[in-house]
């Protein structure tokens, strides 16, 4: 069987449904609706049309030779998911799931978010479809991604800061699951990555596989050949699965996922789930996770809120075990240097998440040399990260920013999103 044909609920020993019984009916209902939609030309047409007229698909590819000089002279091609409406790949999945939710008659969308990109995309879809939207976001993340909180509020969403556990993405998922159990009649849980119980990992992958399908054709057209390697950052793994999928059955194409290594994957502060974790059960699926001897989830750390997650999607766990894809750690600093390098050499400011893929690509390019072609998923743009980057490189006028914050707080704008 082709690797591309894997449909879940299991990928090897990974995946499944480890959730309270109360959610099984909703997951079955979702699975049935998705299976129907998948083969319904009306649904496909609707989604394709939205992507064409709203998302801005197909996203372009951009060759980055000045950046490539720093990557062993390899030919580097970026898939520009940062140019999508709302600024990242997340919208691909969100529009697909929102259409399925609408078919199910759901009137309320809930979501978890780390960097806020998935929350913004979900709030956007809710606004577009006239649905209610509640976004759970760890309190730590609402602080480091304040701009995205304001964006979500401006779009009409309610953002609920999650104060339990580590107050990051994993706890936001817990609260979203709790909300879903209690409100499943009216509510669709719009999960933002290829994790969670079946059918989420396959469904989310399917809504993102357009990234790889477009890119594969675009690279073939540009270079006349398949790339030697495809790279992406891996948090939960949705942008990586999205770009990997079209290449799974091209054995000449190597696949690399870059995990957030924080201070270093050998320190205590990282989010390198496949590199340092071991199989277990979290958030409804069996996969790799960061955990202690007792199976308690360990808090992850990354400068990138979107990669700061101690789990990973089950299909990645399986691709790692089978050796089809390789997963390597990238530290905070490596990512931040790559973020600056792409900005300086190509005039493209990537999201810190995507910068992990760029940092990995620099190393890989040096390994493969100048004859290699590497396709990188540039999953998002860096606007949301300007405060973090500004502080990191000490190029931020802190006094001006503090004044702005103070003014915004005075006018109550931070609470309403009106500061935009």
């Amino acid at each position: 069987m082709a690797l591309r044909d894997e449909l879940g609920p299991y990928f090897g020993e990974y995946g499944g449904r480890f959730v309270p019984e109360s959610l099984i009916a909703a997951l079955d209902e979702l699975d049935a609706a998705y299976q129907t939609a998948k083969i319904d030309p009306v649904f496909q047409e609707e989604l394709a049309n939205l992507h064409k007229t709203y998302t801005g698909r197909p996203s372009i590819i951009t060759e980055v030779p000045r950046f490539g000089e720093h990557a062993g002279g390899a030919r580097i091609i970026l898939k520009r998911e940062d140019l999508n409406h709302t600024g990242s790949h997340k919208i691909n999945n969100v529009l697909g799931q929102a259409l399925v939710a609408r078919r199910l008659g759901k009137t309320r969308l809930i979501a978890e978010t780390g960097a806020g990109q998935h929350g913004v995309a979900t709030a956007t879809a809710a606004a577009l479809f006239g649905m209610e939207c509640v976004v759970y976001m760890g309190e730590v993340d609402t602080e480091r991604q304040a701009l995205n909180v304001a964006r979500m509020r401006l779009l009409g969403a309610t953002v609920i800061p999650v104060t339990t556990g580590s107050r990051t993405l994993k706890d936001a998922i817990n609260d979203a699951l709790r909300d879903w159990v209690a409100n499943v009649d009216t509510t669709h849980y719009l999960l933002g990555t290829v994790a969670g119980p079946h059918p989420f990992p396959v469904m989310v992958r399917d809504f993102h596989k357009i990234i790889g399908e477009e890119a594969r054709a675009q690279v073939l057209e540009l270079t006349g050949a398949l790339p030697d390697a495809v790279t992406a950052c891996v948090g939960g793994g949705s942008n990586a699965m999205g770009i990997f999928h079209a290449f799974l059955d091209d054995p000449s194409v190597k696949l690399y996922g870059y995990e957030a290594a924080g201070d270093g994957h050998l320190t205590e502060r990282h989010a390198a789930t496949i590199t340092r974790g071991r199989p277990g059960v979290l958030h409804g699926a069996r996969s790799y996770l960061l955990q202690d001897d007792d199976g308690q989830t360990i808090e992850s750390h990354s400068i990138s809120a979107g990669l700061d997650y101690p789990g990973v999607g089950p299909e990645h766990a399986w691709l790692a075990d089978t050796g089809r894809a390789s997963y390597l750690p990238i530290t905070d600093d490596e990512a931040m240097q790559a973020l600056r390098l792409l900005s300086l050499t190509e005039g493209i400011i990537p999201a810190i998440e995507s910068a992990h893929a760029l940092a990995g690509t620099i190393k890989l390019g040096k390994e493969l040399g100048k004859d290699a072609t590497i396709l990188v998923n540039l999953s998002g743009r860096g606007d949301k990260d300007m405060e973090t980057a500004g502080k990191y490189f000490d190029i931020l006028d802190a006094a001006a920013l503090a004044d702005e914050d103070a003014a915004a707080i005075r006018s109550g704008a931070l609470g309403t999103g009106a500061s935009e």
Partner: protein
Amino acid sequence: MSRLADVIAARKAEGSGALIGYLPVGYPDLATSIEAAVALAENGVDALELGLPYSDPVMDGVVIQRATQAALAGGFKLRHGFDAVAAITARVDTPVLLMTYWNPVVQFGVDRFADELVGVGGAGLITPDLIPDEAAAWLEASDRTGLDRVFLAAPSSTDERLKQAVDQSRGFVYAVSTMGITGARSDVDSAARGLVSRLRAVGSTSACVGLGVSTPEQVREILDYADGAIVGSMLVKALADGGVDAVAAAATLLATGKGPVEGALGLPSSTVER
């Protein structure tokens, strides 16, 4: 075959039903959690459900989350769960179940976990995030050791899934009163009555209702149609607010729901409702 099922059946035969009490291990500390569990058993609780604190408790509301998070911060280790079961079963006869999310069992090793639990005199497991469909290893280990296994049944479950839950459970099947998470509610959903009658229709002889139960009146109402009533958050709150004495008083009060109204001891309800 299951002593837990026998205990529940015996209460039912008396014209009442079983009162099942939940408390987390290690809250506020290991020793106190053991004392509190013993206090439940000595004050009218027929079976104990000891929760193992877990980092990501998706089935739990804020009261239990807060307690289990405090237990983890206080240094709870899985080992303490077995220590607690051993200490409690040495002092009281009441069947003791562990309530645990699945990953800790997976990491300990399903067979090793079962053997250890048998060794300390535990009755079995309640597994809130493990459905029978994913439970092959646990079905095997529990059959081998004779441990009880309690799966959940929800108002949203199809009849086919209810039958599976009933067939695969031993001891009792946990009827989730409402679509939601743990936490006291002023009225226990009428969905619970409907769910239990659907469970009866697929052959359940031991169905206990939990989620939201917090008063003797609710216990009485549930025992009218079910075999047992499960109380959690209200006991945890009593422990948090008033220590072991408050837990004992709360259990005594709840136990009045098992008997005729005259059986009520007239305890000041303020001890538990603060």
